């Protein structure tokens, strides 16, 4: 009877135990506003050097890996251990050094020397004795064990994203000098893959003003048979920034000879580079700017910045080269359009306001950027354009114009599952003479209005043949709306076929959003005359192009189908490497 009662109690306890344990042992409190109590200060460099010297000393008993000194055992002399737990249950007579490991002094253990622990902790159990001094540093020591068994400082290798770059820094007094060599981090049909190289000097000022001087040479590996552009360019920048803790004010100047895009749409720098390199489709046009610029920026908060700049440029046409592409390498590149060459003096005011809750996958907040510029030239050589686009301008005549460009994005969540995003992007001529080629705009293509072809709205008059598909419009305005919801099924699926699994890994398919989108936009010539819209008006909505589409956004990769509903166009499939906006 007793045995059965005991069994019943045991069974009751066994049934009760999990909930009891669950109540008092399993919940972790996360207090996001407070830093952890036991933070991990890194060991100072001199301490790391000291423990390495101790470990490497021939008078030290070196241990690598975990080691237990058993009860009753005695170890005499200096001991050092690397990457392991030293458990002392016996007696250790001498100093102890532990590198990237723990020292545990058991109930029967005694350590009668000083203990230094870097990258670990000292755990003295009840009954354990430590008679010397303690010195602990939680941060891991950046050391490694050489084939000889001795330790050395580990130098950090280059990061994977910077495999194609190298840099070396050294300090002289207050000045840090960095020599770097890397790519321009994009790919285009004018320069190919530009290589940037040169020094950067930064100085932390005594009165809270930091200074930076940077010189970057730009080597363009693709040849230019026309010799219109140089094989080498440069950007030299000098800047002063106020307040070392948080830079909120900066003033600087730069000189440059560089290739710039005419429009920074339809695709961003990264996607345009990939498209050029892989598919031989460069969605941007370029010109060369040689000049000087002075600028001042103010950042009242981390989310808001205002920049004022003045620059004087010699803007020049550059031809497309013939860089290599993975696919369609035999095809000819789309010509890079001629621009209105000349010297331009430009004043520009730019603002940026960003309250997004996530830089890559926002679901709330604003992202606003806008810039307005006033520019003039006394020696511009305007390209001859169809009269419908721009009346002839005499070369060398005084020439001035103003341009505005804005991009307003709003992200919101309707309910726990449905998110929405809206974007209004546009701008163009706001005053003065007609815009030069390098300030004109267009719409259509894979980003804004994806249901239309590349630059379907570029204001080229009927019958005007232009293989470069140059942007010729004075103004453009587009509105994009997007609703997205998370797809219930999880991705990636567990694929057992090795080939398919490899494809899935390379594509990086993660969890997916279903995206429904609608876009509308119009690009037009402004002014008086046939086919133009008066300066103080925008086109009637009935004249705007509209497209709708649906897609799957898998985090790093998006596949969309879009179709124009205001014109007879086929359904277009668009592959994106990032969110649309």
């Amino acid at each position, binding site marked *: 009877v007793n045995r059965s009662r005991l069994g019943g109690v045991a069974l009751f306890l066994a049934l009760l135990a999990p909930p009891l344990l669950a109540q008092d042992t*399993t*919940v972790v*409190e*996360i207090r*996001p506003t*407070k*830093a*952890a*109590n*036991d933070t*991990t200060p890194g060991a100072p460099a001199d301490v790391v050097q000291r423990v390495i010297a101790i470990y490497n000393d021939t008078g030290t008993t070196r241990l690598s*890996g*975990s080691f237990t000194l058993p009860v009753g055992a005695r170890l005499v002399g200096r001991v050092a251990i690397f*990457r*392991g*737990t030293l458990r002392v249950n016996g007696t250790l007579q001498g100093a102890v050094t532990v590198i990237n490991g723990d020292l545990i002094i058991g109930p029967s253990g005694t350590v009668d020397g000083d203990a230094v622990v870097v990258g670990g902790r000292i755990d003295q159990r009840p009954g354990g004795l430590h008679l010397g001094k303690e010195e602990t540093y939680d*941060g891991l020591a*950046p050391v490694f064990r050489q084939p000889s068994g001795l330790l050395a400082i580990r130098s*950090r*290798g*280059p*990061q*994977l*994203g*910077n495999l*194609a770059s190298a840099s070396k820094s050294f300090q002289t007094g207050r000045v840090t000098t960095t020599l770097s060599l890397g790519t321009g*981090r*994009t790919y285009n049909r004018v320069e190919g893959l530009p290589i940037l190289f040169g020094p950067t000097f930064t100085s932390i000022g005594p009165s809270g003003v930091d200074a930076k001087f940077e010189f970057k040479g730009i080597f363009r590996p693709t040849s230019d048979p026309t010799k219109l552009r140089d094989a080498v360019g440069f950007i030299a920048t000098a800047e002063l920034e106020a307040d070392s803790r948080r830079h909120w004010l900066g003033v600087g100047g730069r000189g440059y000879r560089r290739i710039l895009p005419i429009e920074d749409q339809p695709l*961003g*720098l*990264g*996607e345009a580079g990939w498209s050029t390199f892989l598919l031989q489709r460069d969605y941007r046009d370029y010109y060369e700017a040689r000049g000087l610029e002075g600028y001042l920026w103010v950042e009242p908060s981390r989310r808001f910045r205002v920049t004022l700049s003045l620059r004087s440029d010699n803007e020049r046409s550059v031809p497309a080269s013939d860089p290599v592409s993975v696919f369609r390498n035999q095809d000819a590149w789309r010509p890079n359009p001629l621009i209105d060459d000349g010297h331009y003096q430009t004043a520009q005011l730019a603002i940026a306001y960003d309250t997004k*809750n996530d830089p890559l*996958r926002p*679901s*709330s907040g604003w992202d606003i950027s806008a810039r307005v510029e006033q520019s003039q030239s006394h020696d511009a050589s305007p390209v001859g354009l169809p009269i419908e686009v721009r009346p002839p301008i005499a070369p060398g005549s005084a020439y001035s114009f103003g341009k505005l460009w804005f991009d307003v994005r709003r992200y*919101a*969540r*309707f309910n*726990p599952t449905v998110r929405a995003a809206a974007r209004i992007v546009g701008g163009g001529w706001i005053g003065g003479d007609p815009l030069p080629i390098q300030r004109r705009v267009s719409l259509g293509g894979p980003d804004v209005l994806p249901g239309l072809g590349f630059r379907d709205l570029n204001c080229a008059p009927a019958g005007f043949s232009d293989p470069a598909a140059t942007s010729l419009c004075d103004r453009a305005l587009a509105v994009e709306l997007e609703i997205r919801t*998370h797809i219930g*099924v*999880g*991705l*990636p699926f*567990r*694929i*057992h076929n090795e080939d398919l699994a490899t*494809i899935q*890994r*390379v*594509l*990086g*398919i*993660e*969890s997916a959003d279903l995206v429904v989108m609608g876009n509308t936009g119009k690009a037009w010539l402004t002014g008086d005359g046939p086919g133009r819209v008066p300066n103080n008006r925008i086109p009637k909505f009935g004249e705007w192009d509209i497209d709708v589409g649906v897609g799957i956004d898998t985090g790093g990769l998006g*596949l969309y189908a879009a179709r124009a509903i205001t014109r007879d166009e086929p359904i277009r*499939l668009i*592959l994106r490497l*990032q969110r649309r906006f």
Partner: protein
Amino acid sequence: MRRLGWILGSLVWLAPALAAQGGRVSVSMALNATAEGNGAKKPIVYLRGLLTDSRWNQALDNSLPIVINYHLEVWRSRDGWIDELTGEVEWQTVVSKEPLEDEYTVTLVIANRAERPRRFALRDSTEYFLTRPQRVDVFPTRAGRFYYTLTVRVTALSDADVAQLERFLAGDTDPDATDRGTLFGRGIRRLLLRIAGLPSEVLQAKTEEFEVREIRD
């Protein structure tokens, strides 16, 4: 590009037929049973199955630390209108394995500070530690209907990222400073990581809505 698009589309839609679901990491959320003074309830986060998922096991066995990044948002529900984001918090858990020691290390990183790493000799012990519910000390103080959303990004780090992580654990509070890069640079790294077969996963969860009362003094 269209042909490529069709291939990709087919892959996405055919994948379920080709796939067999195995043990997968998952995340869920619940509301704390005990309400605060104003009726608000703190969120509790549950992460399950990380180390029973073979992809993450393999990553650990290959000495690649796993970073679990939790991003929790507090939303105010406004029926018929856009919900309002009223707060957000973020923390990380880093899991690594020292192959020579055959030990697991778990480090909690809160407010850009790393706690003392916890070491485990057994995978089961590590899994048990990781699956403990995490009660997040955040709740709305205004009146209204609220809910929480959670995005958990689980990634295996590259060797270079390991160096970055170690730099962070060594006290550098801004380890990303030199690696923000451009989309092109990130794209290269992403592609290489994929080719290398390193897993990455984003999980999402949300709670039910709850009412918060206004407290008057």
